């Protein structure tokens, strides 16, 4: 009887000690976002967003401006190593209004596994673009967002939808 008490106590200690967080791997094969971003992408849709109007709940929050000018002429090519590490990029604007101040340079991301910001660099100049949902990457779509700020407050933004060529 005395032993049962000790056995139960030992079982409790072992049970508690064995409780530890378990790391679960990704469901399905791990997605290499950087690898999937590599390639040539054509601009397929441009949406202008009035962030101030959105914040205040005003009507007229966004506008599809794709067909105002030849935005669909613009093509961007992201190059990288086979591991996925980004290297260079090229923007071929055609007759499209510019979406970046420079058309060639290097690109980097803030997080290799789950990037949210793509930084385009050319010498000392750089331009940050926010990466949208990865959901469309495998079906050949990805989204970039450019924000325009005044004293840290986002006033206007542009959402660019790209389609893989």
């Amino acid at each position, binding site marked *: 009887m005395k032993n049962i008490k000790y056995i139960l106590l030992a079982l409790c200690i072992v049970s508690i000690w064995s409780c530890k967080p378990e790391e679960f791997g990704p469901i399905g094969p791990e997605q290499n976002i950087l690898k999937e971003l590599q390639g040539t992408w054509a601009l397929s849709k441009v949406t*202008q967003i009035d962030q*101030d*109007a959105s914040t205040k709940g005003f009507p007229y929050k966004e*506008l599809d*401006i794709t067909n*105002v000018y030849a935005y669909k002429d613009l093509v961007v090519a992201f190059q990288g190593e086979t591991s996925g590490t980004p290297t260079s990029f090229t923007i071929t604007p055609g007759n499209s*209004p510019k979406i970046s101040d420079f058309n060639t340079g290097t690109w980097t991301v803030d997080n290799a596994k789950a990037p949210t910001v793509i930084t385009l660099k050319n010498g000392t100049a750089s331009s940050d673009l926010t990466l949208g949902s990865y959901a469309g990457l495998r079906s050949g779509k990805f989204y970039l967002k450019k924000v325009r700020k*005044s004293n840290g407050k986002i*006033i206007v933004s542009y959402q660019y939808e790209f389609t893989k060529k």
Partner: protein
Amino acid sequence: MKKLILSIIFILSAAFAFAQSNPSFSPATFTAEDEVTITLDVTGTGMAGQDDVYLWMFSNDGVGGGKDALTNGQWGSSSESAKMTKIGPNKFTYKFIATTLFGQSPAELINFGFLGKSKDGTKQTIDYKPFKFDPLVFTAAQFRIFPSKLDATDMSTVYFHQNLATDQNLQRMFDVKVNLTFYNEANAVVGSKTAIVAVKESTSVYAYSFIPDRVITVPAGTKLSKFTYQFTGSVKDANGANVPTTGPVNEVVYTVFN
């Protein structure tokens, strides 16, 4: 000679920079419910060299429904709550929330102005006015711009909502066109384009989208500070003939993004 030219350029640049930034506001854009800090440099004004500067503030200059700030006190004896904080030689700051300061609702407040003065009112600066509040409530209007704040590199779309027009000619106007004029920082016309055919988006809405450098040639080094737009068109006279008609000229000042 070279030194003289450089000196003139330097003085002009300094004067221009001063004119651009005084008074300054933090944040740069604000609603009537935001806390705003005014920074005022009184150099070259009647208050230069003074240690104590009091604000005399007023709302809705030139648009009706204006009030003096509740903190003003009497002209000959300013209230201590209107006193600015000295942050350096000739430099002062003051923090306020407009709805509290004027005792008016956000819907009532359109703009404000102020001057700096001595407590007894014997010395003062010029009037600084009017400074617009960002609207908190959307008000439908016959003319509008999208987005509401933008700079010269942004896509701009000007709209004419004919169903909201109050003028009879504008209500009846057809063959709607747009005139655009762009200005530099010295307020000089850089370029204009007239009679651009507006897009009829619905039975009562006309619009035109553009990026300035696709409409006019902007010389290298020129910075656009604002543009004006005007909708024009035709109406029928008593004999059924087309008569040209024009709407008002609307001004859009570009926001400085940083």
